[in-house]
């Protein structure tokens, strides 16, 4: 979803040097680590789930976090609304430090501005679908008819009309996660946190749900952080991708940056199976030339064209094909050899 603007927007979420240590005395361990007086072996049963993570997410952007199991993704995302209390760091939402918030402010933040969608849905099995969706509003004290009205509205948005009075377990997995999504959307938050929302679904339904989310995102333009294992999913949904390992962010970048230039083998392993033709753009493989006016007798392509879309053109017209920028000026050329080389993974 490479929407245009993000870079102009102010950062919506900022994390600076966030740490989370699990165990009996996390603060002590943190101090010891900071003064480097401690060896890794002697952590006394503590687990460092997140170590010194910093990143920014701009308004309307979807920030994807990837990483192997146990790399600290869930812990990180839960730190943002303090479902898990970070050990150290600074987390700013709209410039306000979440970690300094008093309980009441924090509650307000969770009630109005940040919503979460969970891997295993986290639905309330004893409540009907409609009351699941209305929960956030109920907690806020919105009267019943009003919150049910809103819930019905959101359920329609995610394609669940007619299921309002069923119980969650009567629904399929995909439908349950739609309920989870609707529940998060019902409070109309600015920020959505997704913790592997589609991992528990089978591939076909996952594909549907991704499409659904893309569609919603295109109209709602929420700022989101999205955790996933699956690079294809990350590609589809993410403006930026961060790869985590052992609690640290190893690399952050656009999908293309990661594919072209993985910082190490760990990141390389994640992007290895990426459909390169859907990630790489003409700009990434072209041979640049000085800006020149574009000749009109041969087909041209824009710099943002994906290689997959470029191939049929080249098959029809042969190479080279001129690449133009937004103003229609030629900035370079692509030829078959270059494209093929880019498509083959090293």
């Amino acid at each position, binding site marked *: 979803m490479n929407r245009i603007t993000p870079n102009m927007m102010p950062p919506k979420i900022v994390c600076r040097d966030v740490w989370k240590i699990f165990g009996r005395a996390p603060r002590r361990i943190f101090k010891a680590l900071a003064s480097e007086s401690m060896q890794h072996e002697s952590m006394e049963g503590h687990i460092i789930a997140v170590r010194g993570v910093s990143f920014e997410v701009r308004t309307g952007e979807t920030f994807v976090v990837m990483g192997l199991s146990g790399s600290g993704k869930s812990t990180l995302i839960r730190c943002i609304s303090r479902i898990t209390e970070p050990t150290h760091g600074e987390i700013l939402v709209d410039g306000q430090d979440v970690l300094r918030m008093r309980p009441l402010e*924090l509650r*307000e933040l969770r009630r109005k501005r940040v919503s979460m969608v969970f891997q295993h*849905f986290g*639905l*309330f*099995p*004893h409540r009907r679908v409609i009351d699941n969706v209305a929960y956030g509003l*109920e*907690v806020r004290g919105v009267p019943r008819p009003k919150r049910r009205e809103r819930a019905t509205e959101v359920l329609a948005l995610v394609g669940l009309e007619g299921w309002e*009075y069923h119980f969650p377990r009567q629904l399929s997995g995909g439908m349950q996660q739609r309920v989870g999504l609707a529940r998060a959307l019902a409070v109309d938050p600015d920020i959505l946190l997704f913790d592997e929302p589609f991992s528990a679904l089978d591939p076909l339904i996952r594909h549907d749900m991704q499409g659904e989310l893309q569609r919603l995102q295109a109209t709602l333009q929420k700022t989101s952080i999205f955790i996933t294992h699956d690079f294809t999913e990350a590609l589809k949904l993410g403006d930026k991708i961060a790869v985590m390992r052992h609690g640290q962010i190893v690399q952050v970048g656009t999908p293309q940056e990661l594919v072209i230039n993985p910082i190490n083998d760990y990141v390389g392993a994640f992007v290895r199976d990426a459909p390169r033709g859907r990630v790489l753009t003409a700009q990434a493989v072209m041979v640049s030339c000085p800006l020149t006016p574009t000749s009109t007798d041969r087909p041209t392509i824009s710099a943002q064209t994906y290689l997959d879309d470029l191939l049929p053109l080249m098959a029809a017209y042969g190479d080279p094909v001129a690449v133009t920028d937004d103003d229609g000026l030629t900035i370079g050329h692509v030829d078959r050899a270059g494209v093929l080389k880019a498509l083959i993974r090293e």
Partner: protein
Amino acid sequence: MTTRSHSLPFAQPNFRLFLQALIWVGTAFGIGLLATTWPAVPRDFPEAWNLGLRDPLDAFQRWVVANRASHPVFAFGFTPLSSWIDHALRFFEQALLRPGWPALLLLFALLGYLAAGVRLSLFCAGSLLLAGLFGLWEPTMQTLALMLATLLLAILIGVPLGMAAAASDRLDRLMRPVLDAMQTIPAFVYLVPVMLLFGIARVPAVIATLIYALPPMIRLTNLGIRQSNQAAVEAAQSFGATRWQILRGVQLPLALPSILMGVNQTIMMALGMVVIAAMIGAGGLGREVLIALQRLNVGRALEAGLIIVCVAMLLDRLSAALTRIDFAAPAGTQRQDLLSGWVAGAVAARLSTERAYYFQAYGRLINATLLFLAFLLLDALIFQFGNFPETWRLGLREPANAVVIWARDNLYFVTGPLSDGIVIYLLNPSRDLLLNHLPWPAIILAVAALAYTSGGLRLALGSATGMALIGLLGMWTPAMETLSQVILMVLLTVAIAVPLGLLAAQSPRFSAVLRPILDLLQTIPAFVYLVPVIMLFNIGRVPGLIAAVLYALPPGIRLIQLGIETVPSVTVEAAESFGSSRWQTLIKVQIPQALPSIMLAINQIIVMVLAMVIIAGLVGGAGLGIEAVRGLARSETGRGIEAGLAIMILAIILDRITQAWAKSKP
């Protein structure tokens, strides 16, 4: 056996074994030395060291009696509390006795039908009918009212406490030993203090029952909340729900099945107290049993006992059905039977889907309620049935009495020598050993050594202190009497339970035959079979011994059988694949693996035997039981409390030692 034992030479297995042997040899030597050198006459605990609690306690009791009306603790504390409980009890009693008997039959038939269908419905109605035919209608209703009042209190107290324990680990840790104690300490211990504090009518009986029956309510509420779906709780948190909103809106509803299980368990435990509660004025079926016991009327005891069993089964099934209710049942999946449709169906058909849901989901309940109310109205206006007709009687008394009297008169050639043999060869020698042969320090030493080998130094010190405390309470002689009986009963029970348990585990056929017998023994109050045993063996220590063995056998057999059966079949098959015979497999594979549960069985046997020994005090069993009962009956509060404390200490020591023992075996 710490993990570091390998690095310390003196903690190596061989050395430990050697150390244990040393301790035992030392102890044996010490005991022998004490036994031979200690002066022959005062071998029990020196009377001069008595702490003398009795007089102040008696004085306290007199003070309570004198000040009950006026002192603020009573006037604003216990007395109003008691009168509320009394009101609740009366309310339930009235509710059960007012409507006239057919209405009640209908009520229970409907409940049974709603819960599980025709069979339970017939059983419920049949049980009440039988109660009426036995002439036990009113006592039955009194007992039911007592159960309901206790249950109400258990829910009012237990659910909030369970919620609190779930919210705070600290409170949970604090409460755990208290709850354990509430279940292990024989009820006799708290009968006297409860009577003293809540001395209004049947209230002490409710409180005593409550103390015993409350723990599962607290435990299961706690458990239910702690185990409630963590994901749902976190989701609620992420929406900014307050702690209370999470508890009320998410955790409690999710814990409901567990809480209802607590209701079931509480009812069952409360029923186990029916007879004991009757000793402090509970009335009802328990009182019938006690009267039958006093008059040695087997038939009467049997009738009341049967009804108690029926009531237990009925309440068990009904409350178990509660736990199976699916509150989130999808519309249209409710059971279709005689009670569906009707009024609720007609109403549902006229409403929008949203509202119709309730009429569909609870349709059967609504119809049943309407039916019952209609019948009540008819009864009040037209039939006016009233009490169960006196002329309808069915008696088991005469035939049952006749059988037992015949047995008493004609089987004497067996029962006489058996009884004499038990007294001469078992009871007397073991009592002599503890009271005459061994001086008190030797006994304390032996207990401490036993505690040390099973649980270490702390347990040894604790046990020795406990034993000394019993002496200081002035209860040494009765306690040794009790202890000698307990040891004997436990040995006898184990001697019977182990082979039967093994056999049951080996042969499904035998197990199938045994099961209903064990079920019956477990549900009939022990007092009931005490009656024929007394008739056959005469008042004294023997019937107590037999009753205790009968009482402790079922759980003992069950645990041993379970232990053997749960040995993984893979292990057994592996042994068999090497060609080991069934007997070899049993001895070499199954029994060693089942050892922990066998130890657990022995622990259970001890706890139960101890409870029974006290009861046996009622029928001349001697020992602490008789002291406690005297304390109750003659309202010698001090003595009752002293005996109660001694029982409690003995119970805790025995329980801890065997539990530590069960745990130390890998």
